[in-house]
């Protein structure tokens, strides 16, 4: 979780399924273990920028489509936020 209480989410599973790729195939495409792909997919492990970019490239989507910051825990906005 980030310092402002927002969790990094991802759409890895949806985009992987769209292309019909298994975790192992995606792992091979980005040179990591299947376990790493699984951990990223389940938001257990936060990937580096480089790995996020490699995954986005392998799935053919922009990185911001693949990874996003979720809402703040508890749903409150910071003071002054729009």
């Amino acid at each position, binding site marked *: 979780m980030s310092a402002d209480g927002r969790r990094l989410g991802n759409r890895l599973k949806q985009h992987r399924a769209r292309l019909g790729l298994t975790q192992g195939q995606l792992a091979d495409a980005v040179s990591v273990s299947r376990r790493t792909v699984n951990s990223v997919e389940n938001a257990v492990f936060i990937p580096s920028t480089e*790995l996020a970019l490699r995954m986005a490239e392998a799935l053919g989507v922009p990185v911001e489509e693949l990874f996003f910051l979720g809402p703040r825990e508890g749903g409150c906005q910071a003071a002054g936020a729009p």
Partner: protein
Amino acid sequence: MSSTEMLARRRQWLLVLAALGFLLWQLCTLVLALARKAVPVPALLVASLAGFLVFIAALGGVFVWAKKARGHAALEDEMTRHNRLAAFVAGFWGMLIAATALFAAGQFIAFPGAEAARAVMMAGVVVPLLRFALLEGKG
């Protein structure tokens, strides 16, 4: 299971074996040094030797594993590096806790310096090995 996953699983078990072998070897040696009169010495010597042999065999296994693992970049990916770092941090805390416990116990019972150092070293070796194996087993 892919060959990379099999190699990762093998590394995990080799590290567990190395940690348990080292623990048995050093623990028996520690007990022998501290309470030689109160324990069955031959049994401890045999257990200590068994632990040493398991440790050496596991290290040999790691050596063989490292040769087979060449070219498998996924075995050394960023999550593995992250887990290794977390394991070293766990080892630091293990050593700190062992040293603190020995310091506290030292107020009541006398520990030879070499044996206290051995206990801290045991924590420093066993905790990171087991922590890394545990982290690598997840997912």
